[in-house]
């Protein structure tokens, strides 16, 4: 099945388990995260947030707050009208300046009306955080409460309260209130050709990114130059967004983020905290540290969009797909920060397909990117549906997948294709044929065991980014890359790629990152792009430097040699994907409703693995997050009051040490000749299959199809009532 690629073996540096270049700073307390930085005369800031899900501000009186001793600045929507361009984007196109400029439904740093509980109302800077907190309580706001809507389907009813005057379908990039439509072939012909047609409804909950570090921002002006110390998983984009929103040139903004306590997709642009801190700092003429509490972070940043998905699938008796139809609703909160898309259908080969996704405004907190923004909930829906179809026509879901999954064609070749290898390796490692119940739910007794499976492919496309590398007369190399290490180990990965490409030990390479004044553009730690894109720029810069050294010899004295690269690689028209297959065994206690995962095997092809240690832990961590999405995590709202009930780790039921199942990770390594030494996507890939695989395992164990995430005890008990 596989094309003939040379077996991948470890190179000089790449392919060896390597401790992080900043590991010591991470374990001895010396790593400075944004909130650890102190500047002389620094003030502390706090944000006042709406207590109502939808309310017009009739008046706001900040006089008592301003008069409180120690308060240095108070800003509200009346005296600080600043558009937060990446907080609401027509079409959800997060990197498109024209879209942000044209956005119909603008989001400001303070909004009137307030459109969700936690929407920003005002902010205070004071000499210490307690004074700032007290000042918030002195701000008098008169609200007119407005009708609100929480559920995306309900929001599309004619009589539904309108989150925005034009209606509740989020505008596309042309500002038309239209859903995202993607059709191919002739769907009616597809269903006509089917022997059987099956339908299903699936829904998924809002999951907060819930990174450990609450968002904060330290703003500091020197003349008309702004420095922001802020958690950012994309310092270049954060700089550009901040400059645009504040009417500055990019070079007037410096973003610094040396360490970041996780992101998982919620900060590749600027955050409103950046703009609020900058504004307060300007007004108070002092550095301002804005800190968000855990609850504020939960309600004021974003999480994965909740969805409702309807599928209709046509299939031949032999299992061949003839038609795939989907209609879905993504709850975006009151602002469209990102797309609201749902993936998964494109992993199947089917000529006739129709997909319509409505991104919908609600008065819940904002939705946005979270590790595989469109994937785990989309794959949960389609792969649950396909598992159901396979069951109904009497096929093993693995066989059904092998029959129907997307494969390379003459019209669409791939750089390499190892999905089948991943699936077959997984069935062996997991012992699929033994662990799977031939008849779902047939395990006798109250505790039922069963096995589930899911697969994926995920983009690993190449793209442009930049790197600079320098060598001095002592033979020491310095790599400048605009990455931030939010957890996956980007600094170390970049250092390893540089060392390999330069042919020197890693210890001879310093990595300078996380500072827009010192580093060139980088794509940001999102979309699993850093390793592929910035890594490739590192390779090209290193090549250039080696050529210079070959031509001129090593520098002497105080001279240095410098090379920079901003390559524009392509995949020559081929699709470049990473691949994976997950196999899960569960034990479902049908009397208690609990689900225990007793075995988990994950097989991935992510090209050549740069650092086996950190890559393995990316996959393991992503799987655990995906299990949380499958079984536990949710942000509940009280339908009567519109109040969020479970913002926080404890109430959203995040997994702890005690909840972690054994997870086996296996990599199939391939060098397809693209990207840095053949490396592909890894960081997001691991989460994509976990919810589907767990849900399918629960079906196999119990015979009950669980169609709603998270699959809580209550839902399992209800299914068995």
């Amino acid at each position, binding site marked *: 099945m596989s094309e003939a690629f040379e077996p991948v073996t470890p190179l000089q540096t790449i392919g060896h388990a390597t401790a992080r270049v900043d590991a010591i700073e991470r374990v001895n307390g010396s790593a400075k995260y944004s909130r650890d930085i102190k500047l002389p005369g620094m003030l502390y800031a706090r944000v006042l947030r709406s207590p109502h899900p939808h309310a017009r501000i009739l008046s706001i009186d900040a006089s008592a707050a301003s008069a409180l001793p*120690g308060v240095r600045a108070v800003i509200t929507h009346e005296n600080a009208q600043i558009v937060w361009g990446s907080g609401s984007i027509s079409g959800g196109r997060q990197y498109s300046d024209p879209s942000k400029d044209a956005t119909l439904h603008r989001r400001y740093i303070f909004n009137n009306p307030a459109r969700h509980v936690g929407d920003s109302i005002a902010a205070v800077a004071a000499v210490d955080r307690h004074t700032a907190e007290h000042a918030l309580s002195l701000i008098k706001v008169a609200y007119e409460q407005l009708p609100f809507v929480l559920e995306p389907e309900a929001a599309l009813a004619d009589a539904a309260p309108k989150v925005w005057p034009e209606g509740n379908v989020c505008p596309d990039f042309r500002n038309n209130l239209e859903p995202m439509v993607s059709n191919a072939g002739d769907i009616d012909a597809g269903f006509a050709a089917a022997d059987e047609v099956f339908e299903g409804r699936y829904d998924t909950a809002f999951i907060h990114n819930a*990174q450990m570090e609450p968002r904060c921002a330290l703003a500091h002006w020197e003349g008309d130059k702004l420095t922001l110390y802020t958690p950012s998983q994309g310092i270049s984009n954060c700089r550009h967004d901040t400059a645009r929103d504040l009417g500055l040139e990019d070079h007037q903004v410096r973003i610094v983020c040396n*360490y970041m306590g996780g992101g998982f997709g919620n900060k590749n642009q600027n955050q409103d905290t950046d703009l609020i801190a900058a504004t307060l700092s300007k007004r108070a003429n002092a550095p301002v540290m804005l800190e968000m509490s855990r609850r504020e972070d939960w309600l004021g940043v974003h999480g994965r969009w909740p969805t409702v998905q309807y599928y209709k699938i046509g299939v031949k008796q032999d299992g061949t797909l003839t038609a795939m139809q989907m209609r879905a609703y993504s709850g975006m909160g009151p602002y469209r920060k990102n797309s609201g898309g749902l993936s998964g259908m494109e992993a199947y080969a089917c000529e006739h397909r129709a997909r319509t996704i409505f991104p919908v405004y609600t008065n819940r907190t904002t939705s946005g990117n979270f590790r595989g923004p469109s994937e785990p909930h989309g794959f949960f829906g389609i792969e649950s549906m396909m598992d159901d179809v396979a069951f109904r026509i009497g096929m093993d879901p693995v066989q059904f997948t092998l029959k129907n999954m997307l494969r390379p064609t003459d019209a669409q070749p791939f750089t390499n294709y190892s999905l089948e290898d991943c699936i077959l390796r997984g069935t062996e490692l997991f012992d699929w044929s033994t662990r799977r119940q031939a008849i779902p739910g047939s395990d006798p007794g109250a505790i039922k065991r069963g096995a589930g499976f899911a697969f994926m492919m995920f983009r690993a496309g190449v793209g442009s980014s930049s790197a600079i590398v320098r060598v001095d007369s002592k033979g020491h190399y310095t790599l400048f890359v605009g990455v931030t290490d939010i957890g996956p180990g980007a600094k170390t990965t970049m250092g390893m790629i540089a060392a390999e490409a330069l042919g020197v030990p890693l210890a001879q390479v310093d990595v300078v990152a996380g500072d827009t004044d010192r580093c060139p553009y980088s794509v940001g730690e999102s979309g699993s792009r850093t390793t592929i894109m910035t890594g490739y720029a590192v390779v090209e810069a290193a090549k250039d430097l080696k050529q210079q050294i070959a031509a001129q010899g090593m520098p002497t004295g105080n001279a240095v040699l410098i090379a920079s690269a901003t390559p524009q690689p392509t995949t020559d028209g081929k699709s470049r994907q990473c691949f994976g297959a997950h196999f899960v065994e569960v034990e479902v206690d049908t009397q208690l409703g609990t689900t225990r995962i007793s075995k988990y095997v994950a097989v991935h092809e992510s090209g050549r693995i740069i650092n086996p240690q950190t890559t393995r832990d990316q996959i393991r961590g992503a799987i655990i997050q995906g299990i949380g999405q499958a079984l536990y995590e949710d942000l509940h709202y009280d339908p009567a009051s519109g109040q969020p009930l479970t913002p926080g780790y404890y109430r959203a039921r995040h997994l702890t040490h005690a909840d972690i199942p054994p997870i086996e990770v296996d990599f199939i390594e391939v060098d397809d000749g693209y990207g840095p030494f053949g490396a592909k996507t890894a960081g997001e890939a691991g989460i994509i299959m976990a919810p589907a695989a767990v849900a399918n395992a629960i079906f196999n164990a119990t015979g009950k199809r669980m169609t709603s995430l998270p699959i809580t005890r209550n839902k399992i008990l209800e299914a068995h009532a």
Partner: protein
Amino acid sequence: MRGYSRQQPELDALRGETMSAQDDHCEKPDSVVQYLDPRAQSRRDFLQHTGTAVVASAALGSVSMQASQAAPLEVAASALTRLNLTVNGRAQQLLVDPRWTLVEVLRDQLDLTGTKIGCNRSECGACTVLMNGKPVYACSQLAVWADGMEVQTVEGLAQNGRLSPLQQAFVDNNGPQCGFCTSGQLMSATALLRNNPSPDAAQVRMALVGNLCRCSNYMAIVEAVVATGANA
């Protein structure tokens, strides 16, 4: 299955009523919301109504409740209270605002920023330090409660610039991903290893169950702690 959280309803109740609402800046809409979300009480409310007065009078005796209630926020110098504690082996004499938590004093007064604030309400464990050898959530300890105590933070683990064996195992086993929970994990594990020098994985998981890791690097963390014990 859910371990810690599920097994300690009394702790749950305690969190809901007292410790949990710190830094909650959402205005309180009405009593219904208070009922729905016990966290809708702020730290300021809590300390203003109970904590400050109680603690202030306990610590200083002479501070009247009236004074602390009348002007609870502009803390006059006279309202500061003396605090003696030993941090990482060094005796410290500090004047602290009775409202300050231990983690605030460590981070803001002593510049020991290795201890992180993840939730500020006893949920996540990022702020775990050792108080007289026992792991505590420093966000939920008023600093004055630590009077006379010995406190150890992540900065106190390395001796003479040499990482502790546990820290070295975290380096070798990729214990930190983003690193924000790492100091808390290290402190809980340090306490465990003092009591049980070679724990098995199940013992490590139970000892560290109060330390969340959203990178979900739990397996590497447990592997690092077990390796430390095995090499001891």
